[in-house]
């Protein structure tokens, strides 16, 4: 039984959007002020406890209240009703280098920022070398930070923040900084934090990171807690709603099924079939499936190749091939044909994927293409990250 470090008890937060900040407006709009003040509830009756050592991810759409919740826990905002309790020292990384001043040197900013995060001068002295070493900008530490590149800036800021040594670390979308090597370093540091039993609450749109780091997720929607629990389920739920949004949005814009190419050929219906040949849009990993689509050539075409590509929700290409690469010489086409790509085992991990199909010449002259036409999901029971689905075992000798 671990003790709670954060207890949020029936917390609500109301914002008033009131633009009357000047004397002129106060006088001109006298009496209407009440009517002008529109208010909305950023959070409604939110309660949860966070036991020590938990890594909690807050996810949700823009404006779902996750950043507000983080600020309430951090004490930057006060709740309209309800109580937030917590114990131990807290460091809030809501914006890297929030306290940095461009005209001060890196060294001076380290001391200033550390003081903002609650370190005394003596403590900062003690950590100073570690901070600089972690940031990797020893050479520039006595340069004014306004001459820093943005990368150097955030590295120094992050480095200060994690050396503050908090029991609770609040992070708001700040991990996507620096080059890849530095990001790795940050993630390693966060894992160290986890091992040391510190509590981390972070807000992010990077769902893969949520799955990778969190052991609990709260999904917020319009200020309400929708899901509180398993990261996999929560990530799945939010991906589904995003997907729905994207589909409705596309429908709203009435995009004629994105058809590209020079029009020498056309592509008809695109389907995804499961192992038994019936249409499907959701699969478990490593299942057999077939991608099927109609192609039609008005004139006789001898030089043609048909290809598919699979992209994930981040538009990252996961797989692509075509008949030419597969060593098939397609017979000349006149009129309608059906193309099928049989996949014995679709080795993709959890996520949303989109299929793009195309027909073109061997030289690459595109006859027809349909982008992201068949959408499908893979639901996986295994915890993993990345689009490829492997089933490794581990052995240590």
């Amino acid at each position, binding site marked *: 039984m*671990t*003790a*709670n*470090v954060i*207890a949020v008890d029936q917390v609500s937060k109301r*914002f008033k959007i009131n633009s009357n*900040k*000047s*004397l*002129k407006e*106060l006088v001109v709009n006298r009496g209407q002020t009440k009517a002008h003040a529109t208010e909305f509830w950023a959070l409604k009756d939110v309660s949860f406890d966070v036991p*020590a050592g938990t890594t909690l991810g807050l996810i949700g759409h823009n404006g779902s209240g996750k950043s507000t919740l983080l*600020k*309430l*826990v*951090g*004490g*930057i*905002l*006060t*709740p309209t009703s309800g*109580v*937030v*309790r*917590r*114990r*131990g*020292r*807290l460091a*809030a990384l*809501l*914006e890297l280098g*929030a*306290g940095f*001043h461009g*005209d*001060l040197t890196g060294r*001076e900013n380290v*001391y*200033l920022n550390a*003081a*903002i*995060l*609650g*370190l*005394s*001068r003596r*403590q900062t002295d003690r*950590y100073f070398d570690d901070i600089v070493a972690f940031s990797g900008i020893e050479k520039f530490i006595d340069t004014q930070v306004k001459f820093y590149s943005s990368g150097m800036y955030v590295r120094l800021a992050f480095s200060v923040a994690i050396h503050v*040594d908090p*029991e609770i670390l609040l992070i708001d979308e700040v991990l996507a900084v620096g080059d890849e090597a530095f990001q790795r370093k940050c993630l390693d540091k966060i894992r160290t934090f986890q*091992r*040391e*039993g*510190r*509590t981390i609450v972070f807000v992010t749109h990077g769902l893969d990171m949520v799955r990778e780091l969190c052991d609990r997720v709260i999904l917020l929607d319009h200020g309400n807690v929708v899901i509180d629990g398993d990261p996999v389920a929560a990530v799945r739920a939010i991906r589904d709603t995003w997907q729905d949004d994207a589909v409705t949005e596309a429908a709203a814009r009435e995009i004629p099924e994105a058809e590209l190419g020079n029009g020498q050929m056309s592509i008809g219906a695109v389907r995804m079939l499961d192992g038994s040949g019936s249409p499907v849009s959701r699969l478990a990993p490593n299942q057999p499936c077939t991608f099927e689509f109609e192609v039609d050539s008005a004139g006789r075409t001898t030089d043609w190749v048909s290809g598919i590509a699979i992209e994930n929700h981040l538009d990252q290409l996961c797989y692509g091939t075509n008949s030419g690469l597969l060593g098939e010489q397609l017979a000349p086409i006149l009129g309608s044909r059906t193309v099928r790509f049989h996949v014995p085992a679709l080795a993709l991990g959890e996520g949303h994927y989109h299929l793009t199909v195309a027909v073109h010449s061997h030289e690459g002259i595109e006859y027809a293409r349909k982008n992201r036409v068949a959408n499908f999901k893979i639901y996986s029971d295994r915890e993993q990250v990345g689009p490829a689905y492997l089933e490794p075992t581990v052995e240590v000798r």
Partner: protein
Amino acid sequence: MPPITATESPAGRSTPVDGTAETTSAALEQHGHGEIDVEALPMTVVHARRSFWRGFGEDVRDIWSYRGLLVQLVRKELKVKYKDSVLGFFWTLVRPMIQLVIYYVAFTLFLGNSQPAYAIFIFSGLVIWGLFTDIVGGCTGSIVGNGGLLKKTYFPREIFPLSVVGAAVVNFLFQMIVLLAALALAAVTGQRVVPTWDLALVPLALVVCVVWATTLGLFLAAATVYLRDLQHLIEVILLALFWLVPIVYAVTLPLNSFAANGHQTLLTLYLANPMLNVIAAFQRAFYTMGPEYTLQADLWPRLGFFLVVGLGLLWLAQRYFARVQGNFAQEL
């Protein structure tokens, strides 16, 4: 709105005060050695509602635990002010020196003012008035101007105006050096410069000035968040106030005029200005060339009275500040 938070801080401030500091620092010692015993730390309410009457002490303790930050911010203010300039901090001394020369040239040489060592007279009032306006003017925009920081980090919000106070006091001390140098120069050129017991009034007057300026500053810093016009309004008001206190003219002029015309109420009101008394104390202490131009009243009880009233108002201003500060982050 509930006042200031009961968050944890380096000094381990929290509701159950005893023993906390030790536990926290003990936990901190473990940096790099893994496991931290969180359960030993007390659970505290974030932004606990503090009593209007008794919250002051707790708030002051909070601010005290962030004194390191306060020092850092004051250093920042001072450093940034003269960033990248060749003479750097020397400008702090140049400005009052030039002022002194201008007053001497304009009033004594050009206008033929007969008051002895008139530049010293003006400067001894101006130096403390400058402190007052620096604090009030600086504090007014201190919350709004630090919006970026305020929305992203938490520490007692009073730190912002207080850092302005700190920087202004340091600047004042530098200007005092110029005043003392000018006095030395005056003594060399044969002016009457004698140390009197009135010098003992200076620390008291300084404290009264800082207390009143901080009171106004705290109140205005918070109020400006809700009414931005105050920033500009204050500039104008301070300009008008400058002529309500005897800096350029001798205090005896209005006093005699009020007395001659029988405006007893106006006279009382005029003298009830705390800054007038503060300035009078400075003039009495440093302008020994013509005591007949300074306020001849017993300033000890007057300043003592203003100190007590000022402290009471400071308490009130802090309570107001504490009451509204919870909403700063969303109003900016």
